[in-house]
């Protein structure tokens, strides 16, 4: 399990990672989602002990990375696909890596076969395609057979077949009971692989919740109706006990309704319809709305010159900032409501203590 406690990274005046606290549950794929530049890679580098946190800590199974004995047997990571010296073959790359952590040489052949590189393993890795490089990176991560795996944007630049292979692999690893922590900037990709979501924007935690909960809250189905007789339709809705909102363009949006029922209702009341359609808000849109909010919020604090405010006032500010938004979901998220809800529901009994000392 990977655990972050108040993890913070500051580069000069810029906060790349801002008081991040969460845990990755074992046995599921946890998606680490955020727009480019949100601090995902920085966070992952801090988990691996490559970058030093400004404050807070990141642990793997309760230990800081540097304290881990034979670390690649505890956590395997894919950072950038091309982190290999091109003059060395895939086989020799994995061989030195295995040796550095006291792993037997046969593990090299095992992982090469697992990722399907056995036929090109003796060739210089400099000639590898992006997909082959990615497979070699994944072979490196799997070499120590670790219970925790971390992949930074593993599908970037891959062809559809490679993408499907990585999805299947990650789900398989999670099914074996491993912790799989994978970053992406694409909600659609995560919707296909992740069972749990951690969303960050501008280095700050926006949501920490099971995927199904995110879908339940964000895949809002509604019927859109456009009519030249809005008063008549409003009366008909009221008579049938249907609550419908007026959108900015004058159309009606009736949540969770069946288009057939709405159409029949309009016909019964003799209301002319210009549009009758079932609408579904995409998860991508929900994600975009959420992270856009974090961008606005960050701009706010930057001008105020803070950035070190307490969690309580941060949440309050985020709430106020989102007040004008009709949906208000982003505000609830920024306040940490969802994450807390998930933890309570899961019976894990883990409170959030973003400013915990030590």
């Amino acid at each position, binding site marked *: 399990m990977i655990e972050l406690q108040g993890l913070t990274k500051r580069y000069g005046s810029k906060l790349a990672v801002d008081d991040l606290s969460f845990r990755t549950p074992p046995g599921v794929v946890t998606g680490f989602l955020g727009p480019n530049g949100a601090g995902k890679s920085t966070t992952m580098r801090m988990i691996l002990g*490559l970058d030093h946190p400004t404050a807070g800590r990141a642990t793997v199974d309760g230990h800081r990375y540097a304290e881990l004995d034979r670390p690649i047997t505890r956590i395997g990571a894919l950072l950038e696909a091309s982190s290999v010296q091109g003059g060395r073959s895939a086989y020799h790359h994995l061989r030195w890596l295995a040796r550095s952590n006291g792993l037997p040489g046969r593990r090299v052949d095992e992982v090469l076969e697992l990722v399907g590189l056995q036929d090109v393993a003796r060739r210089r890795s400099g000639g590898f395609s992006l997909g082959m490089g990615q497979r070699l990176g994944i072979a490196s991560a799997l070499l120590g057979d670790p219970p925790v795996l971390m992949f930074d944007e593993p599908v970037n630049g891959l062809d559809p077949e490679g993408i499907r292979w990585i999805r299947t692999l990650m789900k398989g690893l999670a099914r074996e009971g491993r912790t799989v922590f994978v970053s992406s900037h694409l909600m659609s990709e995560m919707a296909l692989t992740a069972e749990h979501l951690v969303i960050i924007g501008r280095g700050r935690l926006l949501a920490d919740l099971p995927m199904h909960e995110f879908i339940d809250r964000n895949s809002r189905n509604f019927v859109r109706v456009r009519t030249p007789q809005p008063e008549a339709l409003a009366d008909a809705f009221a008579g049938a006990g249907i609550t419908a909102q007026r959108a900015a363009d004058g159309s009606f949006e009736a949540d969770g309704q069946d288009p057939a029922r709405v159409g029949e209702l309009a016909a019964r009341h003799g209301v002319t319809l210009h549009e009758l359609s079932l609408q579904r808000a995409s998860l991508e849109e929900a994600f975009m709305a959420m992270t856009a909010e974090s961008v606005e919020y960050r701009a706010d604090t930057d001008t105020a010159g803070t950035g070190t405010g307490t969690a309580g006032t941060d949440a309050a500010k985020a709430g106020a900032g989102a007040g004008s938004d009709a949906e208000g979901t982003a505000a609830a998220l920024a306040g940490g409501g969802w994450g807390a809800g998930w933890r309570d529901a899961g019976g894990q009994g883990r409170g959030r203590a973003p400013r915990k000392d030590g």
Partner: protein
Amino acid sequence: MSASGAALAAEWIKTSTIRGPRWTVAALFVATVGLGALICWFTNRDFASAVSDGQVFDPVSTGFGGLLLGQLAAVVLGVTMIGGEYASGMIRVSLAAVPVRGRLLLAKAAVLTAIVLAAGLVTAFVTFFLGQALLGSHGTTIGAPHVLRAVVGAGIYLTLIALFSLGVATMLRSQTLALGILVPFFFMVSSILEAIPGVRHVAQYLPDKAGQRILQIHAQNHDSFGPWTGIAITVGWVAASLLGAWLLLRRRDA
């Protein structure tokens, strides 16, 4: 196996599974032996004009005339030992595999020492015997005073130059930058500085000039220190370079 032993073994595999180090070792040998032989042959053929009057002829340092070029291969070996990892981004994989950074640097330094010391000693002895044979009657023997010291010293000198370069490349995190500074420095700048009368007494303490003192079997009257003191000065430079590298490697984000 201990963690340090594992790191050492991994560094050995890294170095032996790319072509660069092998070619560089070959270049070290060819440049030092070849150029030294050429200098000896020409010196012997035209001895009277090659050696000016009143100067003591030093057959050993004449034979090591190719070292000025050969040492650049030692610089390249030291720089690429870590510079190649910074260039490719593999340094992150290495530091994730061996998170104790001093251990990684020490493993690199140990493997570099083993390679350059072995290659340097072989090169030094071949250079000496071939050079003295070509010098004919002007040559000396390995049993003559201070000669063995000078030949073994050449191997030690090359090793120290390689280690110094490893430290510099680690501090700079770039092999292009490190080579761009070290190669012209060791090839020219240091010699130019030494040739300037007012600067000479300072320039003799530079890592290469101090270490090269061990190649001479006759003391020069302007020398301020002996051969082993010269090596000790170069060791000091190496220690400073590797200490700086270790401190920065530990502190910095990878």
